[in-house]
């Protein structure tokens, strides 16, 4: 039988108290006080983040957990921008063209927001760039959209899908942003809006979403800068997920969402983690959320923002992290 010494190169040490979790990663030791073998495992969970100053349903987010940007919202009708520092939210500069339902890319201090709908119900092709304090108009997208997908950076972004005329059927168009102009790209294999997004212009992806108000996607599509590929990984159930980019093509999250059937608001607290190949179930959020924003740097760094909890708009946010905890080794 292989021994621990042969595997790790060291003996199992005996200690009267456990070492700090972060120092014990990968080790096994014997605790002489509890007469148990111990180790350290990685465990992930959601904790509550700083509450939004006001509800922001249908917002889209970009950035990361400790430096996030929430752009636009169905309410309030001011084109609000809110910034998160990992603890609390402050109000940033408002969009020049007050609207919501657009796509976003970039970081908290270097972001891009494109298309969407104004509060009078007019769809717009407007693009704006953010420098951390104010928005500047940029060249418009070629085709308006609502609940579009967006990913990439401020200087190299992708617009994917969305609904061209508000509620209704989505389309499969793609546009690429080169820092100055939008160019129509190759279409997606299927039309979808309200998808989760991740990655860069040359290594991006979208997951979930819906074709219309009744048909939802579980599938994942990857983008290489010029064409889309259907990949095997699927979320469960098929649903709309967070709006905003979370992670990369090889490390992403899809959390919360909605799969209504025309008469119900079926919000989820589900969370799934992507490793570049498959989606696996991860710890759930405390709140069910739909029409919520989300962002994060990887499948270990997520931020869920506002939305509806199945009944009402909420200001609550949640942060997903992976930590280390001391665990007793069990033989059963």
């Amino acid at each position, binding site marked *: 039988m292989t021994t621990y010494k042969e595997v790790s190169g060291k003996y199992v040490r005996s200690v009267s108290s456990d070492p700090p979790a972060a120092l014990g990663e990968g080790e096994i030791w014997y605790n002489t006080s509890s007469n148990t073998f111990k180790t350290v495992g990685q465990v992930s969970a959601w904790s509550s983040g700083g509450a939004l100053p006001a509800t922001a*349903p249908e917002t889209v987010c970009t950035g990361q957990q400790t430096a996030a940007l929430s752009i636009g919202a169905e309410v309030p009708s001011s084109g609000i921008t809110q910034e998160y520092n990992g603890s609390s939210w402050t109000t940033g500069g408002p969009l020049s063209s007050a609207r919501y339902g657009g796509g976003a890319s970039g970081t908290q201090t270097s972001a891009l927001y494109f298309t969407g709908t104004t509060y009078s119900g007019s769809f717009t092709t407007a693009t704006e760039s953010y420098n951390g304090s104010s928005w500047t108009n940029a060249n418009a997208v070629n085709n308006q959209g609502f609940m579009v997908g967006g990913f990439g950076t401020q200087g190299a972004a992708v617009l994917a899908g969305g609904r061209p005329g508000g509620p209704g059927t989505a389309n499969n168009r793609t546009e690429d942003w080169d820092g100055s102009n939008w160019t129509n790209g190759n279409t997606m294999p299927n039309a979808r809006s309200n998808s989760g997004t991740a990655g860069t212009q040359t290594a991006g992806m979208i997951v979930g979403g819906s074709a219309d108000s009744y048909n939802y996607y579980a599938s994942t599509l990857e983008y290489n800068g010029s064409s889309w590929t259907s990949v095997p990984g699927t979320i469960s159930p098929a649903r709309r997920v967070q709006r905003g980019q979370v992670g990369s093509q090889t490390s992403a999250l899809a959390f919360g969402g909605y799969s209504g059937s025309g008469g119900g608001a079926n919000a989820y607290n589900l969370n799934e983690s992507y490793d570049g190949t498959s989606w696996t179930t991860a710890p759930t959020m*405390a709140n069910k959320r739909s029409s919520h924003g989300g962002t994060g740097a990887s499948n270990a760094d997520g931020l869920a923002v506002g939305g509806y*909890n199945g009944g009402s708009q909420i200001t*609550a946010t949640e942060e997903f992290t992976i930590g280390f905890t001391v665990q007793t080794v069990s033989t059963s």
Partner: protein
Amino acid sequence: MSLFIYGTATNTGKDFFTYQDRLDFYLSAHPGNVWVVGNNEKGAVWLANKNGITKTKSEAQAVVDAAITAAQEAWDASTDEEKLRIDRPTDITLP
């Protein structure tokens, strides 16, 4: 023994529930500021420390039902365009 403790408490934001809390006990949030908490010592202490008001399951369900009813009435009073964007809230049954 019941699996859960039920109560109402107002989410105060950052660290209202922590990473460690989520490892120590079950926790889920529901409309009406209703919380369903795993029935162990740490769960009970958490609810008490949050100035939570303990409810029976039926009392907590009534709070959720009232919140959903209010949301449904708000939806019913919204415009047709708004109704196309957000579906009507449905009843929620607490675990």
